[in-house]
């Protein structure tokens, strides 16, 4: 039954063709208007396109006649760098915050973390990014007697820039993004941790005299992770999809800005490539999440 529940929750699998269908038909309406040479019926175009994709060929971008695959592979490392840092950071801090505010429920630590989470949830990304630029980049800031002004755009100063330069460029966008993810992760971690520490086996563990640290880390933590896996699975596609808004504000040439550029130029081959890749990762992430459930909770059985 658990298995069935999970499978019906997983949006990928047999539904993937449907997933791509709305885009391609909608896309084709405009494509037909744009270049009239394509007067084949939409389903045939779709089948043709699908046939190519299955053979690993996403076609050519109509805006800069580069192959879609190359364009994506070009941008991918930057997005992975940014999103990886942001999500990783948010995950580590978010989980710690969540545990902390759950075991110290209703204390000032809890209050502080919950408030922070609320702010993170309500903050318009682009505005937050602007404010961060204003505070740390435009005027610079003085700390420990030094004056800093972090770069606010791009991923490096030049082609042959060093590691330090790249990290400097990474700080602001990664920080902005991770605050947003942090809010989500810490809220979820808090509620699932609260649920777990009020259950019977945790009381048993405390009753047999284990230290508080042991109870929390060895007994509660693993079980509290299960709901979080779902959230992480929902976040993983962002790793390749990029963050449209943040990338645009920080002029970060990743997948998000590739997407926006393609959209602005009605470059549908490129758009479809990016969307397909995201869809693929949605499916993969869900599969991985299912495997993780089984690993974290041996009661989940796959037959």
């Amino acid at each position: 039954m658990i298995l069935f529940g999970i499978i019906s929750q997983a949006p990928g699998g047999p539904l993937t063709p449907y997933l791509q269908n709305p885009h391609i038909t909608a896309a084709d309406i405009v494509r037909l208007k744009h270049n009239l040479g394509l007067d084949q019926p939409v389903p045939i175009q779709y089948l043709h396109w699908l046939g190519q994709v299955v053979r690993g060929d996403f076609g050519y971008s109509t805006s800069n006649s580069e192959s879609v695959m190359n364009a994506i592979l070009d941008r991918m490392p930057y997005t992975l760098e940014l999103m990886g840092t942001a999500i990783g950071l948010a995950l580590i801090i978010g989980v710690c915050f969540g545990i902390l505010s759950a075991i110290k429920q209703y204390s000032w630590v809890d209050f502080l973390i919950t408030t922070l989470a609320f702010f993170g949830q309500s903050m318009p990304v682009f505005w937050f990014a602007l404010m961060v630029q204003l505070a740390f980049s435009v005027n610079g800031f003085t700390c420990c007697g030094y004056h800093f002004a972090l770069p606010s755009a791009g991923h490096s100063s030049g082609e042959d820039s060093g590691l330090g330069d790249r990290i400097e460029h990474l700080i602001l966008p990664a920080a902005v993004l991770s605050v947003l993810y942090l809010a989500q992760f810490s809220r979820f971690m808090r509620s699932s941790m609260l649920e777990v520490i009020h259950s019977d086996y945790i009381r048993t563990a405390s009753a047999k005299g284990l230290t508080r640290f042991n109870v929390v880390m060895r007994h509660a933590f693993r079980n509290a992770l299960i709901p979080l896996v779902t959230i992480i699975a929902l976040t993983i596609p962002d790793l390749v999809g990029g963050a449209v808004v943040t990338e645009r504000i920080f002029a970060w040439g990743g997948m998000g800005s590739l997407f926006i550029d393609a959209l602005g130029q009605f470059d549908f081959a490129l758009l479809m490539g990016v969307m397909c890749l995201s869809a693929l990762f949605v499916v993969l992430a869900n599969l991985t999440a299912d495997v993780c459930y089984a690993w974290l909770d041996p009661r989940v059985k796959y037959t």
Partner: protein
Amino acid sequence: MAVALNDDAFVVSRNTVWRRFRRHPMALTGAIVIVLMALFAALGHFVYPVDPNAIDQVNWTGYPLAPGVGGHILGSDENGRDLLARLIAGAQISLTVAVFAVVMQIVIGSFLGAIAGYYGGWVDFWIMRLTDVVLSIPLLPLLLVLTAIVSATSNKASLSFGVIVVLIGGLTWPAAARLVRASFLSLREREFAEAARAIGGSDARIIFRHLLPNAVAPIIVQATLAVANVILTESVLSFLGFGIQPPQASWGNMLANAQTNITIAPWVAICPGLCILIVSLSINYLGDGLRDAIDPNQR
């Protein structure tokens, strides 16, 4: 963000809910702030009758005017238009889009969720698969693509406000549908539903007159939280240039050009963003308080 449904949730009286709600100072504050913001949007023009699209020909030099210059309380934007007047106009747009999109989301979601939960079987299966499909597509990229396509295919230069409402409402209903379906699954087995069936009530009558009113509590919570999300979504769309089109003001598109002048005129960027933040923060607190009041077992 599903609200767990327990049977007690349905029998809580209004007084109890209100008493529990009052215990949340942040939720109360949120409610007051929202009322104030709605008044600001509705009555702002009467108190401060300045045209949001008029350019101050006298004082404007090509750069944003500082607060106070030429009688502009909050200064002007980069085109010499009064910032406060635009904030008021933006509030009207942003709040109306949010309310209409949420109403649409709730109506579609409740309807599909109710049918799925009530009939079960293959109706339920296909509606829920549809829900999964809509849920699995990342909202923002899809919205961007759709608004771009609509604006390219329509002959009008600007995207109408209705399109935004329909697109956002038409893509965000699955959360509501799931919620309503979940409560219908338990509600349809209850005695009063059986009684209604026994006296010969039609399916439509049982669904809308007997079951739906009992599922209204989680719907209210969902709707409240959805307003905050829609405001954020609309502002992001407008910020990227795919939402409400200038010269019509929206909090999102007011920020679009603020980035270029941020060094000389930070207030142009700060004001609209602050409005978005305050409203969505208040709504989130309100929704959270409501959820606790209606269904305290959630915590």
